[in-house]
């Protein structure tokens, strides 16, 4: 992949506020006359964990895919590192952003080691640096490299697979990580364990994280801010403290569910 001039802007040299990594500017997306998201206008700040909360079909996942350009807005624009996603080379943009999905999407024909090494190898890292990085990441997500590096995904438990999924997203050290209900399919105990570890991890890593969930507990565990989606609109965006006392009916419905 050739690297075009505009495709790798330096972080910091941006035209918006210095600490806004992702900006939504009045974004709409319609597919077949149906509006999936409408009037999105918000920013994601450097180093924060923004949790997008909402019911199924409320537009959270769509919003996430607008960031790494798996979808393009119908109107408005999404800026990453100050540059509109339309001006980014999509391949470069995606290699700049880590991505974890609920079903992990681990490649079943690759070992754990090769799964984690995908993006570094796409980026052409030297082989010994890639190997070193894989070991480092396995340890980071709590898996013994000696035991797990050569296993295939089918030989892992659900929780282990998600750990590998997280390690894979972090492999090339992207400044931004998008996570789409990564822990949604796990049993409650494993989920709580992973949430705790992940919360600790994000503090150390200083990544900008956008995290989609329908689980309000998860939102409180991880979020520096919570954005609430309803019917394709972002109806509330605030810190967990203020979200807890929100007067909004949907926010109250979510809060009530954990009393």
């Amino acid at each position: 992949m050739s690297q075009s001039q505009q495709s790798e802007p330096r972080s910091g040299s941006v035209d918006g506020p210095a600490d806004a990594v992702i900006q939504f500017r009045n974004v709409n997306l319609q597919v077949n006359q149906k509006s999936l998201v409408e009037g999105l206008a918000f920013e994601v700040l450097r180093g924060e964990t923004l949790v997008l909360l909402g019911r199924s079909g409320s537009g959270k996942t769509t919003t996430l895919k607008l960031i790494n350009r798996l979808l393009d807005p119908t109107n408005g624009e999404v800026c990453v590192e100050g540059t509109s996603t339309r001006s980014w080379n999509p391949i470069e943009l995606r290699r700049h952003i880590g991505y974890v999905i609920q079903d992990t999407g681990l490649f079943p024909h690759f070992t754990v080691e090769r799964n984690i090494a995908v993006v570094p190898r796409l980026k052409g890292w030297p082989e010994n640096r890639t190997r070193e990085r894989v070991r480092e990441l396995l340890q980071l997500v709590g898996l013994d490299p000696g035991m797990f590096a050569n296993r295939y995904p089918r030989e892992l438990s659900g929780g282990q697979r998600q750990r590998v999924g997280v390690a894979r997203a972090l492999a090339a050290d992207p400044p931004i990580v998008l996570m789409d209900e990564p822990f949604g399919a796990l049993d409650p105990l494993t989920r709580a364990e992973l949430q705790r570890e992940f919360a600790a991890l994000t503090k150390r890593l200083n990544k900008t994280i956008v995290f989609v969930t329908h689980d309000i507990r998860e939102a409180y565990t991880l979020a520096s801010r919570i954005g609430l989606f309803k019917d394709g609109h972002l109806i509330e965006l605030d810190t967990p403290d203020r979200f807890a006392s929100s007067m909004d009916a949907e926010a109250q419905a979510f809060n009530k569910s954990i009393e």
Partner: protein
Amino acid sequence: MKLIDYLVQNRSEVLQLTLEHLFLVLVATGSASLIGIPVGIILTRRTSLAKPVLAIANVLQTIPSLALFGFLIPVLGPYGIGRVPAIIALFLYSLLPIIRNTFTGVNGVDPAVREAARGMGMTDWQMLTQVELPLALNVIVAGVRVATVISVGTATIAAAIGAGGLGTYIFRGLRTVDRTLILAGAVPAAAMALLADLALGSLERILSPGSGGTIINRRRWVVGLGALVIIAGLVAYFNVGVATSGARIVVGSKDFTESRILSEIVAQTIENGTDIKVEQATELSGDLCHRELVAGQIDMYVEYTGTAFTAILKHPPISDPRTVYDQVKTDYASLFKLEWLQPLGFNNTFAILVRGDDARRLGLKNISDAARYAVNWRAGFGQDFMSRKDGYPGFVQTYGLRFSEPPREMDLSLSYQALANHQVDLIAGNSTDGLIEKLGLVQLEDDRHYFPPYEAAPIIRRDTLDRYPQVGDAVNRLARRITNEEMRKLNYAVDAEKRDVKVVVNEFLSK
């Protein structure tokens, strides 16, 4: 057990036919894979094309194979017979399973895996080569497997258009009602299909993403594939090698015993009398011999004057042998640039037959002699004789024949037995049929020259004759050398005694 004996005795021919069969199948499915897999991949990228393309491939699949072969003959002109149309037909049949399985295999990759691949920044090509194809490989191989098994079966039918292969035995066996021969073609073909199915089936399992296929298994597979490619290469080399080494001509034969014997006689005569190598293209049905000769795929074959006169030149039947021969010789030279050599001697026409003891007792020599006894006789005729223009109606009219009851219509081969068993008293057989000798029958002479002549004579391409004039000289030494009686004996030796054509002909020529 007869089958095993046969296969062992004819092992070099069995091997040759098996290799030919394998060659057809490998070339056809190989090229269908080379085309079909990329087409299937393109369809996953241009889904609007998927429906029409799969529909076309589906329609191709439903065309009966004989119809497809028949259709390809005029379309391909000079290449309309032999390996080329066979491979094209097998190729077309192989396309559907390969395209369809590639398409469904690639589309069947877990959407989550695909989304992850895109989300990580793989280009379309990287996604295809690193994710989709490896995961779809077992489904694609399953398609190739289906195509291969279909091809092994269909390739047997390709023998009908002179493509060789194990179908040669099946057709030969069907014609001579020889179950051993049918099995000699069918059993190896079925074994080949089963082996291909097993081999590709195990490859499919090794390649399936959840299989844990070991390195050793894969390595064994690479070795196996390599061996197959080498075999195909050897077969191809062998075929090309024959085609390019030294002076060589090809003699064709039709799909019945007598024609096969005659091509063997011509071939051995040429090889004995010149230093030219002869190849034979056997089992050419209908007018394929003529077409191949005109197209230059074969150099010569033995034809019957009557067949050339009525079936190919479409003249109405006449009965003078000299006139017929002169006419076909002139017409063939001007229309097709083909030369008729000297007739071999015998005349394979309808033979009016009676029992030998009747003939001796009543002193019968010709048909007119028999006319006065016929009112007390019963006659049995084959369906062909009853329906042909030059058959029954003109026959009874010419000789003023009346029988005691209307003639019985029966299968030709049964009519011989019926005559011998006194169920009928007169039949119309073929004058060179080996059974005439065997059953002690006598052919009555056609003293009013009612039946058109079917004299056998070799035809050769003029350019071949110009290049190798010694071939014409050698073959003309056979002129008038084979009598009706000798032809009957040869037919009998091969058809009834099941003796090898080459040996029988060698004995005949040594006399």
